């Protein structure tokens, strides 16, 4: 992946101005896409923050390549490309985990909703059955009626 033709011993990889422009354009396009998705109610704001931050990060990396080199140095990685890939990979891993957590919560909520609805309908059905069988006097019976088949 990062096996770029770089001279052995060279510490830094310098982004060419061409890649910087492409990265910046992509970042801006990405952030516009997020904004548009929010605007059209396709994406909720609370889930968009993380993507917006990712877009800003891309933009910052394109605008100030020195930033990436600083990070690479802090990580103890000699090759900036490796640092970049590692960061992106970790970010995606975190996002995927975040989505699993959200998914689990929503699955639990859906289950509870289904259960509540099932119980409510069952109770309504039971009451309707009792009213049919017991008539007006059935109002006072404490024990649910055991109807015969």
């Amino acid at each position: 992946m990062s096996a770029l033709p770089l001279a052995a011993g060279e510490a830094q990889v310098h982004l060419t101005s061409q890649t910087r422009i492409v990265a910046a354009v992509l970042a801006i396009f990405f952030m516009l896409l997020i904004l548009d998705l929010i605007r059209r109610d396709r994406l909720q704001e609370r889930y968009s923050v993380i993507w917006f931050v990712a877009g800003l990060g891309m933009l910052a990396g394109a605008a100030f390549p020195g930033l990436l080199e600083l990070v690479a140095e802090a990580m103890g990685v000699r090759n900036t490309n490796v640092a970049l890939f590692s960061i992106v990979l970790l970010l995606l891993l975190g996002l995927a985990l975040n989505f699993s957590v959200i998914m689990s919560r929503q699955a639990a909520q859906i289950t509870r909703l289904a259960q509540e609805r099932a119980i409510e309908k069952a109770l309504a059905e039971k009451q309707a059955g009792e009213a049919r069988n017991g008539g007006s006097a059935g109002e006072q019976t404490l024990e649910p009626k055991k109807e015969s088949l």
Partner: protein
Amino acid sequence: MRTLVFIPAWNEEASIAEVIADVREAIPGADLLVVDDGSADATAERAREAGAIVASLPFNQGLGAALQTGYLYALRNGYDACAHLDADGQHPAEEVARLLAEVTADRADLVIGSRYHAGAVSGTGDYRPTFSRKIGISVFRFFLTLATRQRFTDTTSGMRAANRRVMSLFSQHYSPDFAEIESLQLAVRQGLRVEELPVRMLERAGGTSFLTPVRSAFFIFKGLVVLLVGQFRPRQAEAER
């Protein structure tokens, strides 16, 4: 003493009416609820015709969610005791009545009907497990016993009776994937009295078990992960009810 017997059912139109009739005869004082877990067939209609109350989940949610629906219904409607059994006719209702007797006599909070308990084998044990099933059974038995420090022989039994303490616990926490095993672990960890009773069970009337060797292995692996994670769940002080 108000008692609810509930039956989780998923596409069991062939056997549900018979099971309901069996329960009515063996446990005449109990109310009957069928939890229809999003069946595509006429399970709900058959159950209604047989005189049961039916709680239909709008889509299939799995056995755990269906059982939890039953516990929640029992808790909300003020039942003192509840029991559940499988809808496929493997569980004789007279055995369920024996489990319920243990709960109403307050000898245990949760009673499990065991196919493999020593007492079940002598004379009454009609149930013969297959080889791959035997392996799974002994693995779960070993690890659940290790985790709970209590001996269990039938960890996946779907025939149980419970009181209100169990209802309030299970209506809050019930794993959708590994309902039987994790719920036992949870109940023991919460300090509830869990007891096994040897029961007689019948062979499956129709259909085959879903377990192929590969699936069995995956099932066992998943179960072990669930058990391991369960050991790290917090022990909550049981809310008084």
